[in-house]
């Protein structure tokens, strides 16, 4: 089950590891994605702070960590093929975070709450 931030990241938990991506809504808003700057493995992430960076043809945008923890994996395929996010944002992940504070999970939005949020934008 995916959970969302109001900065349009999604997080899917498996044990204490969260797989993180960008929502289809966000990718559609950005348009054609041309560049993804991934974090370093081992880097620490703090909830709500910029952890990666993405560019589309006409815009640039930060990606914020949905949860605090340690970066344990990054999707290197995006470095050569950032358009994978346009093709399928919900299934092409960006990074994995080993979550350090499980209580932060409660601050995320579920699918329905996120849909309500994007409908209000």
């Amino acid at each position, binding site marked *: 089950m995916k959970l969302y931030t109001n900065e349009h990241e999604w997080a899917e938990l498996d044990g204490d590891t969260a797989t993180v991506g960008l929502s289809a809504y966000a990718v559609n808003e950005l348009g054609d994605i041309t560049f993804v700057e991934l974090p370093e493995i081992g880097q620490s992430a703090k909830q709500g702070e910029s952890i990666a*960076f993405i560019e589309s043809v006409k815009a640039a945008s930060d990606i914020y960590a949905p949860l605090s923890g340690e970066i344990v994996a990054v999707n290197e395929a995006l470095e050569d093929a950032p358009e994978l996010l346009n093709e399928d944002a919900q299934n092409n992940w960006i990074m994995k975070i080993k979550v350090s504070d499980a209580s932060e999970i409660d601050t995320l939005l579920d699918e329905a709450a996120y849909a309500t949020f994007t409908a209000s934008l």
Partner: protein
Amino acid sequence: MEEKLQRTVLFDKHQGLNARNVGFGGWEMPVQYESVIKEHEACRNGAALFDISHMGEFFYEGDIANSGVNSATTTDFVKLPVGKCKYGFLLNEQGGVIDDLIVYKIDVTHLMFVVNAARIDEDFKQIKSRIKSGTLENRSNVTAKIDIQGPKSKEILQQLATFDLGELGYFGFKQTTLFEKSAIISRTGYTGELGYELYVDNDTAPILWDKLIELGAVPAGLGARDVLRLEKGYSLYGHELDVDTTPAEAGIDCFVQYKTHDFIGKDALLKQKEEGISKVIIPFTTNSKRAPRNGFEIYQNDKKIGVVTSGTYAPSVGSGIGLGFVDVKAYDENANLELRTGRGSIPIYKTELPFYK
């Protein structure tokens, strides 16, 4: 105070195509339909269709040689052959660019000026003040402009044209008809591809737009248009050109006709030629997927020497590309260049135009 954006006669067509709109030069224009990359691709390999009706058209009728109109811009309309158009500049006395424009010589007493949307009022006032006789009419609001650009544009447009499009050389045009209404077909464009700019009345525009799509042209927004023009290194008013910049500084002095006529701003340009320019546009690439952006600062040897005026990721090049002004005295052709942004530095590499051949 926010000014209400104007809409072209094709606005409803764009909405029907799910366009994403943007304010541009006072107009609400489609920045993209489905995808900037796909629309760019359509132009480079097929045919792309652009609504450019926001641009302005002025019509002059009178004595071209003696009315003052021939010194209004950098182009010599007396020398310009009938049926040809030419790119040039409307300058102030200091040689600064009030606007860049294309002027069409319809016949020996008629000209059409095509100007940027955001500059329509200023240009009209300036040109009018430089003319002593004849009439100048602003028909921007009753003239629609549709550009069809790309290698397949000729075969598509030929199905609607009433003459052989092969007759038109580059920067050639013909006053003709489309759907039995008066129209101008011009072998020009802002993409570097084979293409045509079509001037029609507001009633014909929606019919023409639909028919060209039916024949295979792909609607494309200003996003793709900006990438296409930058890949060829074409200037955009408000970015590479403004009232504080001369054509020489923008690197496009070659379009100024110095020898055969006098024009407002000429003395200042000649003086600058003697004294030298203090800033100049340089083209550069990032040799990576990073895109330069308008406003990024250009550094060399830890010193700020300039600023980016246009930048994008260029699909035809496979790299970020940009144009920017640098201070001529500070710029060292042999030292490394970098952009400094809010999130670190991006190395850049000076290159030659066009980025895409």
